[in-house]
């Protein structure tokens, strides 16, 4: 379970990136966070990971305050960054092995890693190839493997589909669907309304650090999500 309670973040330069954000993502729920560039999506994720400290409010991972007990909290969360960056001189398997161990999984074998890489659809020949030869999508898959191997109950994804080809993107969606079925709480920040619609249980639209709209699946399938989104953006433009 992922929770943001009255979460605010003001950066050192005075920018209020998050303004009293409230989110709750239950087990087996995918929450898609939409919003224009600079809306505060990445800031939210960074707060969950204790990369930055909240100015106000709380971030809870399985009820544990991520800014007070970050190590404890991070045990229960996996993270796939916007642009998965790994050690270029290590092979995919070596990278996965390293991060698996960092995440406390020390008893996995090569076969386990291979299995997970097959699961995310990475080509077999890439398993023992150096990461620096990988395309962005391939890296993204390795990143996903790393997240999956940790097997944490919560997953944070920052624009995971950016740069993926349609096939890879839809494969990713399938995997997320599976993970959701396993009971994971998933927070996905994205610009991809199409994907969000296809998979989200809830969609939130962020604007200038505020969650201006939340709709559950039934609601946004009835409405035209794209139109709602555009309307909200429009407001911003006219307001700005």
């Amino acid at each position: 379970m992922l929770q943001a309670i009255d979460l605010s973040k003001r950066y050192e330069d005075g920018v209020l990136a998050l303004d009293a954000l409230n989110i709750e993502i239950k087990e087996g729920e995918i929450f898609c966070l939409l919003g224009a560039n600079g809306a505060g999506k990445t800031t939210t994720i960074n707060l969950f990971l204790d990369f930055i400290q909240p100015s106000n409010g709380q971030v809870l991972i399985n009820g544990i305050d991520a800014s007070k007990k970050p190590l404890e909290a991070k045990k229960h969360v996996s993270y796939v960054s916007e642009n998965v960056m790994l050690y270029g001189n290590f092979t995919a398997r070596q990278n996965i092995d390293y991060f698996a161990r960092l995440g406390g999984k020390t008893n996995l074998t090569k076969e386990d890693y291979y299995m997970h890489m097959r699961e995310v659809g990475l080509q077999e020949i890439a398993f023992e190839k150096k990461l620096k030869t990988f395309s962005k999508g391939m890296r993204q898959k390795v990143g996903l493997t790393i997240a999956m191997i940790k097997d944490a109950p919560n997953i944070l994804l920052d624009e995971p589909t950016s740069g993926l080809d349609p096939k890879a993107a839809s494969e990713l969606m399938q995997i997320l669907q599976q993970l959701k079925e396993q009971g994971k709480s998933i927070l996905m920040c994205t610009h991809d309304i199409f994907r969000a619609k296809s998979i989200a249980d809830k969609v939130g639209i962020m604007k200038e650090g505020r969650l201006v709209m939340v709709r559950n699946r039934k609601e946004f399938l009835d409405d035209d999500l794209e139109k709602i989104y555009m309307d909200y953006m429009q407001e911003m433009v006219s307001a700005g």
Partner: protein
Amino acid sequence: MIWHIAKKDFLLNLISARFIVGTVLCLLIIPFTILINLDDYGTRLDEYHIKTVEAKNQLEQTRVYSGLRPVIIRPPNPLSLFSNGIDGNVGTRVKVDFGNIPALPEGKASQRDNPFLNSFMSIDFIGIISILISLLALIFSYDVFTREREDGTMKLSLSKGISRPAFMSGKILGIILTLMPILLLCYLLSIIIILVSGHTSFAPDQWVNLVFLFVFSILYMLVFILAGAFISSMVKQSSTSIIISLLCWIWFVFLTPALAKNFAESLITIEKQDNINYSLIEINREFWDNLHNEVSPRIEKELGMYDRDRSYWHASGGQDGFFETSGTARDVMEYERRMKAETEPIRIDDADKKWIIVKNRLDDLYRQKRLQKNLLMLSPTGMFEMIASSLCQNDEKALDEFMEDVREYRETLIRHFETNEWFSDLRYITAQPEDEIASTNEEKNRIAATGQVPDSWSNQNNPVLDLEGVPMFSHASTRLLPVLLHQSLLFIILLLVICSVLTILIAWSFNKYDVR
């Protein structure tokens, strides 16, 4: 956890260009340095052997006590293959002279520069290590944090729930693991080259010193690793970090030691050797004046040989009190014997007077050295080189210890002369058997007129001294490891303090490091 990170970095470093370049650089420079030093050491060793044999022969051919002035040659130290220390600045030969208390060995020492001040431009193993290892340490550590941040891997790592202190420790351990083989390689390579060359071998205690030298090299390396890591934790970009690191490197490795030397030289002025020499000459002049104007006329009068020519058959002598004669009449010999008996003690007293002047200057040299050492506390490189030259036993203390022993030996020898009353012994000036000495000048002339002069009238035909019982010089360093370590204790502690402070600073600074 820490271990996984360290292992990961170690493996990544092994295939990195900087590791390969660093290793190759060491493989090229270290053997080259050691070979140069081996060559130099060989020359010094040969010189030592030649000079020692020369000194021994000379001593064994001495016929009279006034010629018994041993020459002592300081042997080269095998450990100087690692650190030249100040050995290159000073000579190796000391003459045990009764008229002077020796301050420094004669030879190379230029009279203008302080031989105790290390120049830091010497190409020796430690000099190269201190430059190479500090550079390598910085080159591996300047981007420990910035690189992971720039590559984006730090976010993923830290999202795994690993604590920052653990992450930091793992990263630093990774660098240590990477550099240790290089450092070890440098040591092994040079030891192998030295042993294979067959020029020398090390005594067990020297092996122990070498091990400690290695340990302190690690400490030295650690200082720079931590310094680089600290810089890395303070900035966001690797490019900023490398510039700051290199500037620090130049400052601590080159500028500070050079400045320490310059400051020491300009803050403490040393009396010019010329002025010292002038004072010494003055004392000598008084000695000779007294000898000619007071002692000689008095003894002549007492012997009733005033205004009579003293004629010598075969005589040779020197400024240092040496005088040997043969074939000369007994009464002239008696005159010479009494002259020596009276003036040699004066000469020894004068030596003490001169020593006060000489020692003043020597003390100043040591003061300069101490100031330099204190200033070198500002640079890890300076401290490391001080520790190294202390461990390799060729710092100013080692020299001082040797000279102390020489001076003590001189005292012992003088006491031996005194207790055996050699100063007033006829053997002090002649080795001619007493029954073959002509009793008067007339008798001498008469024998000479026959053309049948005995062999013993010539100095070189007379018997050499029996050296049995004469104290001989020996010097063994009393400075075993505990003493050596104690002498460098301040530096060692300081290096450890620097390491701890840097570690704390890194922990503090990395704790608020923006990983994004």
